[in-house]
């Protein structure tokens, strides 16, 4: 039982970083970022390049992942999403754009980094015992960094001027514009922050699970599951969704054959959405 709890907690913290980024972008831009998993993947590959190819410290790699992926996000928002949202009234156009962006990033990564799985050795070695559970030191470190980053993001969006502007934009775009806020700039910053979080998550998890150029879609799928559980666009909901998925996986893999775990998760998700389609913390009207 202790091992299930440890596995669930670690998975939840890792997933929370991914879910936070995608829900920020959805909340601020009203865009379902299908390229979120690819941004995760690029973050991981940047850390790999910095640490393995250039032999620089891990902290430099993580910082580079956050900055580069954040800038990629801002660039995509400014050059693609902002324009499409301005000239198009059909909401599926931004989705198709996001899908196209995902394929573009995936193929660029395949071209630059090749087809192989890339990973870096654990930042710290050793395994702790927590009761009867095993807790590798590297996972504990990733867990701690994830929690610290989640806290930092929550502080930023709740207590800074930019963060409050992002929340205002998520709540009512028109009212925020009427208040004189530069919504284009806030949107770009929000998209960049969401992308940077995906990059950091990839950079953290490359030391645990590695990444390859094709991993993006699987990550995006999990991110969507989390925000559907918690409520799309709601930060608290994303965290709740991450905890729900993390523990569902940990419990499922402990009690059932692997093939049954995701069958149960998807079945439960469908039943849950029949009862509460807006997710746990989402509002019925959107």
């Amino acid at each position: 039982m202790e091992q299930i709890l440890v596995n669930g907690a670690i998975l939840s913290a890792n997933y929370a970083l991914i879910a936070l980024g995608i829900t920020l972008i959805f909340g601020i831009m009203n865009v379902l970022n299908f390229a979120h998993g690819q941004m995760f993947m690029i973050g991981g590959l940047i850390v790999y390049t910095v640490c393995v190819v250039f032999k620089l410290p891990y902290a430099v790699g993580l910082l580079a992942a956050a900055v580069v992926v954040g800038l990629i996000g801002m660039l995509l928002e400014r050059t693609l999403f902002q324009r499409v949202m301005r000239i198009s009234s059909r909401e599926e156009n931004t989705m198709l754009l996001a899908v196209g962006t995902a394929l573009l990033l995936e193929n660029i990564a395949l071209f630059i980094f090749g087809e192989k799985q890339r990973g870096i050795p654990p930042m710290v070695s050793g395994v702790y015992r927590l009761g009867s559970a095993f807790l590798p030191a590297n996972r504990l470190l990733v867990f701690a960094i994830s929690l610290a980053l989640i806290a930092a993001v929550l502080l930023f969006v709740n207590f800074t001027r930019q963060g409050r502007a992002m929340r205002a934009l998520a709540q009512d775009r028109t009212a925020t514009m009427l208040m004189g806020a530069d919504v284009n700039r806030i949107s770009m910053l929000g998209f960049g922050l969401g992308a940077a979080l995906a990059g950091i998550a990839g950079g953290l998890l490359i030391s645990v699970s590695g990444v390859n150029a094709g991993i993006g879609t699987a990550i995006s799928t999990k991110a969507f599951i989390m925000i559907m559980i918690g409520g799309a666009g709601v930060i608290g909901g994303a965290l709740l969704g991450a905890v729900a998925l993390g523990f569902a996986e940990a419990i499922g893999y402990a009690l059932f054959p692997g093939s049954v775990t995701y069958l149960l998760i998807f079945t439960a998700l469908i039943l849950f959405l029949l009862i509460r389609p807006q997710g746990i913390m989402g509002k019925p009207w959107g």
Partner: protein
Amino acid sequence: MMEATRRRLLKGAGALAVAGVMAAAVGLGATGAAFAEGKTLKIGQLGVMSGAEASWGLVNKYAAQATADMWNAKGGVDIGGEKYKIEIVSVDDRNDPKLTVSGAERLMGQEGIRYVIGSNTDVTATSIRPIAEKYNAMYFPYASSRSLYTKPAENAVMGMVASYQVAPAILKLLKAERGVQKVAFVARNDSDGLSNRDDAVKAAKDLGLDVVSADATYEANATDFFPVMSNVVATAPDLIFLPASAPSNTPLLMRAARELGYAGLFASDSGQDIKVINEMAGDAGNGLVSIGGASADAIRSEYMDEFIKAYTKVAGEWNDEAGTKVYALEVILATLQATGPAAIDDTNVFKAAIPGFSMKNPFLKEDSKLTFTGEADYGQKRQIGVPLVLTETKDGQFTTLAIGQVD
């Protein structure tokens, strides 16, 4: 705050599917150079070259291209006194049987190609069969399903050693030489993973081994193997067998097990890559017995060294998995040289030549023959007689444990 989230998610899923198909269609394309003069022999390559399993098909593509480059550098391959430049035409099926079918139609129908390397999984390889029979084309899958190679099927030739041939050899060796008694299995939850697992479990039971865990599986898109390995390590096996494990997953599975205190051996019936194992598993990567190719230092020939250089030029870096995929094009070309140009368009001539075909294995240092094999498993010769090379990871290297022959 947001509008109609579920509706948007469903729309997005539809958009993703449409864009995926479009991307695969755009991905159709020739990789080889087109030659302006002289005769050209087109060889198809069909497999998964994007997504999580991209490495399987890309290694096929790079290996075929490297072989073609080596022959083209010598002026082409001599068939019936005429030199043919080789052109590789690649199609990415994204591991989706629908795209495999359209890709096979493109290669065998529109392009008129009669020899296709691939695809990479049982499901996609099975979907090629009706197209190959319609155009009487030969294809060389990296898939183990017996029905592909057993009569009345006659157009597929397996390009590798099958899982049900590898697993008994590994288990027998480890039982005899390492005293393995208790085995646990952890499989990918897809048709290849599960069928390989079932074959390996049967082999273990036939050898009298104690199967302590056989139902642990992981999803193809899994990134964290700690939960599934927690259960498996708790059964205290001597050996953890990883059927059909992709090179991207194997080091993570091993690392998770080692972090949980497991000190025993690992085995896999699929090809692996030492660089990936070293990067991702470090010391935890020791003790993996798997199928190897012709690339181990101790066994490879000078020709294999040349191939490694050509492959590195094409792909940017060497991949040990390519050592298991080096044979298909070389054997196709050698068979065509043996039959003469008639077989280029008429595969019945090629089929007729299969039983008597034999060539020196150019990739191994020792003097050994390459033939078609498979009679024991399929009742006909529909498998390239790739040597069964078993390797073990030790101190960041593949060391050769045994070399044998199927059939």
